[in-house]
Structures are given as structure tokens and as C-alpha cells.
């Protein structure tokens, strides 16, 4: 029998699945109330998953190994989904459009489904992870990843809408999307949030590595991939700000950046080997 926190995370997975369904149904059925339900479900998922993280934290103290619950693959996945959901709710509120939901919430849902399939127990911290840098490093990295996820989801919306003639579309699902100008702006603005967070994530990681191993940069695959992600988004920002890259090219670069992000997060652990092999 799973502990309470895992049951709550399973409930969160179910909620994200339901919300994804509502958002997609809202687009195809053109029923605003379905999207509204999606928002309420996402808000409920935010509360349930926040509670689950808190309870998991407390449970770890009860087991005598108290530590922040972001230290293995399972915990990092649920924290990633939690960040995406919060970032999404913020964007939905700020931009007043629920059509984003069908493109962003599924990322949180599939992340949780993946988490559902792997070991969920609370393990004590290995010596390498016992550091206060852990908190700053993990939180900044995943908040950055979440921003990139939102950007990529919106970039997909942009490409779909632009392919069918942009803002001239009348009727159909695409007419419910915000203007291409708004979508294009959001692709950039999400990255403008993610990039500073990723930068802080890399720097806190370097500081931690220096404290643990005496070297702030060792070209370990995880480090190198985080640099690759950083370079891709740096290229995006330069192209955008100084060369006026908008629209399709910017959207494609955002999706490429997110693909690199996912590889940095999961691919490196699953495919390559290195210092981060404990799966965080």
C-alpha cells in the first residue's frame, strides 16, 4: 500500500488527465464551460500536489531522514509537473485565454504518468546530495524547465494557427486561440522567465559542484547538456531581440530548446552516464 503522499500524487495524475480531457474537449466542442472546468481541475491539482509535496516532506522527517522532496527522479518529475501547472495557471490568468490548457497541461499529465511508472519510495539522501545548495539548484532548474515547457506548448499553438493562415482563421478550433501576435509574444516572454532561472540553476549547480568536488565545471554530460540548453535559448534571445526573429522561426527554436531541455533532464540520466546518475 502506498503512503499518503503517493496516493495524493496519483490523484494529481488523474486530475491532470481529466483537465487535459476537458481542455481538449472544450476546443473541439467549442464549449467554454468545459475549459472553465479544466481550470478548476488544474487549481484542485495545484492544491492536491502542493499538499502531497508537504506531506512527503513531513513523512521524510518521520522516517528520520528529513529532507526536501526533490532528490530523486520520482520527486523531480512531480516537482516539474507541479511547476508547469502553477506557471500555466499564472499564464492563463494573465492572458485570459483557456486555449493554452490543451497544449501545456498534457505536458504536466505525461510527466505525472511517467512518475507513476517508477519507484516512488522515500529514500535517504546519499552523502553527495546533503547540501543546502540542493534546494536552490533544483528549484531554479525546474522552474526554468517549466517556463520552457509553457513556451514550447504555446509555440506549437502558434505553428498550428500560422499554418492555417494566422489571424484570418474564422471558425474551427484555431479561432479560439489568442492572436498570433499574443502567442508569439508569450513564446518569448516564457523564455525571458526561463532563461534567468536556468542561468541561476547552472550557477548554483557550479557552486555546489565546487563545494562537493572542488571543481565548478567538469564537462560532465549533465553540465554540458545544461550548457547546450542555455546556448540554444541564448541564440533564441539574440535572434529575437537584435535580429527581429519572430513567428515561425522563433517558435521552432523554442520547441528545439525544449527538446534539448527534456534531453538534459531525462535523456542524460537514461541514455548517458555521469555524476548525476542518481537521477535528479
Amino acid at each position: 500500500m502506498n503512503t499518503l503522499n503517493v496516493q495524493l500524487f496519483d490523484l494529481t495524475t488523474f486530475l491532470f488527465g481529466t483537465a487535459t480531457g476537458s481542455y481538449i474537449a472544450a476546443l473541439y466542442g467549442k464549449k467554454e464551460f468545459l475549459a472553465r472546468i479544466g481550470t478548476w481541475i488544474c487549481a484542485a491539482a495545484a492544491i492536491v500536489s502542493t499538499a502531497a509535496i508537504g506531506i512527503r516532506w513531513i513523512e521524510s522527517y518521520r522516517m528520520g531522514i528529513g529532507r526536501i522532496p526533490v532528490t530523486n527522479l520520482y520527486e523531480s518529475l512531480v516537482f516539474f509537473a507541479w511547476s508547469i501547472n502553477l506557471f500555466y495557471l499564472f499564464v492563463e490568468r494573465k492572458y485570459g485565454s483557456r486555449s493554452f490548457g490543451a497544449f501545456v497541461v498534457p505536458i504536466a499529465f505525461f510527466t505525472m504518468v511517467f512518475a507513476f511508472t517508477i519507484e516512488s519510495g522515500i529514500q535517504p539522501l546519499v552523502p553527495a546530495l546533503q547540501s543546502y545548495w540542493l534546494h536552490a539548484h533544483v528549484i531554479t532548474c525546474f522552474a526554468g524547465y517549466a517556463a520552457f515547457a509553457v513556451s514550447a506548448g504555446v509555440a506549437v499553438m502558434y505553428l498550428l494557427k500560422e499554418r492555417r493562415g494566422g489571424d484570418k482563421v474564422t471558425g474551427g478550433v484555431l479561432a479560439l486561440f489568442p492572436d498570433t501576435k499574443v502567442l508569439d509574444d508569450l513564446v518569448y516572454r516564457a523564455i525571458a522567465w526561463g532563461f534567468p532561472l536556468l542561468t541561476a540553476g547552472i550557477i548554483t549547480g557550479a557552486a555546489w559542484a565546487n563545494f562537493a568536488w572542488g571543481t565548478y565545471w567538469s564537462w560532465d554530460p549533465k553540465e554540458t547538456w545544461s550548457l547546450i540548453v542555455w546556448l540554444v535559448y541564448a541564440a533564441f534571445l539574440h535572434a529575437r531581440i537584435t535580429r527581429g526573429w519572430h513567428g515561425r522561426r522563433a517558435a521552432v527554436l523554442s520547441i528545439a530548446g525544449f527538446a534539448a531541455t527534456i534531453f538534459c533532464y531525462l535523456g542524460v540520466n537514461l541514455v548517458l552516464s555521469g555524476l548525476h546518475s542518481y537521477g535528479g
Partner: protein
Amino acid sequence: MTTEKSAPSPMDRVWNFFISVKVAIFTLIILAVASIFGTIVEQNQPLEKYHEIYEDWAFALMDRINLFDMYHSWWFLALLVLFTVNLTCCTIDRFPKVLKVVRNPRTKLDEGLEKSVSLSDRWKKKGTVSEWAPRYAEALASAFSKPRVTEGDGEVHLYAETGVASRFGVYVTHLSIIIIFIGAIVGNVAGFKGYVNIPEGESVSSVAVRGGSRMQDLGFTLRCNSFRVDTYPNGQPKAYVSDLSVIEGGREVLRKKDVVVNDPLQYKGIWFYQSSYGDAGGTTARVAARRSDGTPAGSLSLPPNEPFFIEGYGSIRGVNYDRNFQGNGPALQVVVEKPGKPAENFWIVQGRPDLDRQRKDSMVFSFGGLNTKMFTGLQVARDPGVNIVWVGCTLMVIGIIMAFFLSHQRVWLRLAQGPDGRLAVVLAGSANRNRLAFEKKFEKIQTGVKAVAS
């Protein structure tokens, strides 16, 4: 011959190449793509290992282009140099222009500027320029920021701005990258990275430099007093703990009993990081000796079969060990030899310190268990550039925050007497970042400024 004037000189061409943002974007993407190879091909492994994995032709090719240590290869360094030169040239080219614009802002809203800004509003009212100028200046100050006033040709121009620092964010960020590179170079040139294994009870005064056969002298001696592994209740390792002493001029000058991962020891700029451990070979038995009156006479560490001499008494040596001696748990068989007497051979049992009293000897021995001699593995680093790197990192975060979260917002207001005798007011605004948010702010400024007139 005729186009000599308009053709750029070779120097100009080189310069134009390096100040190009296109080149910057290209370099960023090439660096990103090139970096991937070193994550697929494991770096700095023994050559035999690569021979096993790759066909001969592939091995030869990869070795030729330094793919086994690509991040230190000449071509990767060349890419980094291109990146740095490009970054520097872009900054040298653009920074003075930005500085000029910031120092001498366009305080007058002329017609050209009026057309180029995205947000503007016009209205008319009764009255004169001199009558309304101070009131509008005050209104703009409270709705946005205190304006500069420029007068001329019967017109009054108000100019107000916030978030000027936003213009410098990108240069602070570029500078920070150069500082980080300088720090990295200083560390590489003036520092070293090494490792050392120290068996318990032993000392070292030099360490092996990583990736070479050179030894680095520490300038002092480091002793490992002991090493242990703490475990969680489930048996998982909780902490690797080294007890280290620094010895200089024959004296212990520093001792840190709990050097663990994430908590290194530092002395004279050299850092020692807990990194690995292992079995140093050799097991010893811990034996405590007491006189029959109970006063301690020393705790002995006995290697197998080697006699230990106690002054004025004799010698003791451990000859045999039993995990469970006659059902009493771990025990050590010892041989005691005193001058001119036959050797005594008996067992002492762990956890039963008074058992040996039954021998009615002047010395009572008790067994404290076996010690496996461990070694602690330490990473050793001296990096005089690391603080420069942290300065760079801090600047980078500050620069990026300036660049993305500040916005240089400018608002102009022009008062002129129209041909109809009424006062013509023009309000205009622009922002270099987050224009959607500024649109909303501009609306508020509009209402704030207009409220003066009503």
C-alpha cells in the same frame, strides 16, 4: 579603382564580421551542437577502452580530432575564442552608442520621434503654454517620473524616464562571461587539481595531479587520523567521514574531525574534498591493557602475529581470531611472553573486559574488536581563479535580471500654442521591453496627466 572610396578596407571587413550578431547566433548554435559530441563519446577514458568500442578507422579519426578530450581540444578552444572575441567586439561597438543615448536622451518630442513611437495621444485645451507647463510637469511626475523640461520656439517639452539600467543589462551580462573566462584561465594557470589516497594513521605531503604524472608538493603534511562510514538504519551510507590533521613544522596546526562530502577542509588555499575510500589492506586487533589495579596502560593496535612490547612487562601478540568463540562472540587469541617465563596462550573475548582477570596477572587485557585499515580518497584543489568566477556569476545574474526584468520606459509631453489659439498637447511613450505591460501603464499615465486639466 573607382570604387576605392566605398569599398570597406580589409580591417573594416574583419571588424564588421566580429561585430555581427549573425556571427554571434551562429557561434552559439555551433558551440551547442559541438558540445553534444563530448556527451556521447565518454571523455578522458584510457585509450584501450576506445579501441574496444570503436573500429580502427573510427578510432583513428576520432583521435585525430581530439574527440576523446574534445573540450580541451584546439578546435573547441578556438570556438570559445571566436565566441569571446565576437562578444567583446559587439560590446565595444555598441556600448558607447548606448551610453551616448542614455547620457543625452532625446528630450524633445519632434515630429520624427512622434511618428516613430508606438504610443501617443493628442488633445487641445484652453490656456497658454506657460500657464499649463508647470502643472503638467507635476502631473507627469506623480503619474510616472519627474520630467526634464526643455523650452524653445514657444514650445515646452517634458521628458521622463525609468529603468535606464535595462539598457546596460546586456553589457553587464557580456562582461560577466568574460570575467568568468578570466577566472577559469587564472585557475588553470595558477592552480592545480589533484587527488590523494591516505591510509588511516598515515600522512602525505604531496598529491598526484589529475590527468598527469606530476606530483604537487603541498607545503605542509596532511594526516588521516581515521576514516569511517556512517549508515542509515536501512544500511545505506549516510556519511563518509575523514578525521584529518594538518601538520606543519612537526606540529599539528589544524584538525577537522568530520571532513565529509560537501564539507571540505581548507588550509593555505588548498582544499581537500572527501571523494572516495577503500580498504587499505591490513587488519589490526584493538586490545586495551590495564594494570590489575584498574589503571589504564594503553590501547594497543596489534597487527597479526607481531609482538608488541610493554615496558617492564613483556610482549603480547595476536595469533588467532574467532568470530564466535565457544558461543561468546568475537574473540582474539593472544600469546604473552615475559622474560624468563614460559609463553602464555589464552583468549580474550570482546565485550567481556574483566574475563582476563581470572589469569591473576599484573596486566589485564581486553579485546575491543578488529580494525580494518581504511584509506580515505580526497580530491585536492587550489584554484585562485574561483572567486573571480563567482564575481562573474553574480554579475551574470544581475545583468540578466537588468536585461529582462527592467524596461527602459520613456514618456514625452509637448505643449505648443496651436494656430487656433488653443493649447495643443501631445503625449507619447515607448519602452524597450515588455511593451504590452507598458501599454497598460501608458493608459494610466494618460488618465493621470489628463486629470490635471479637468
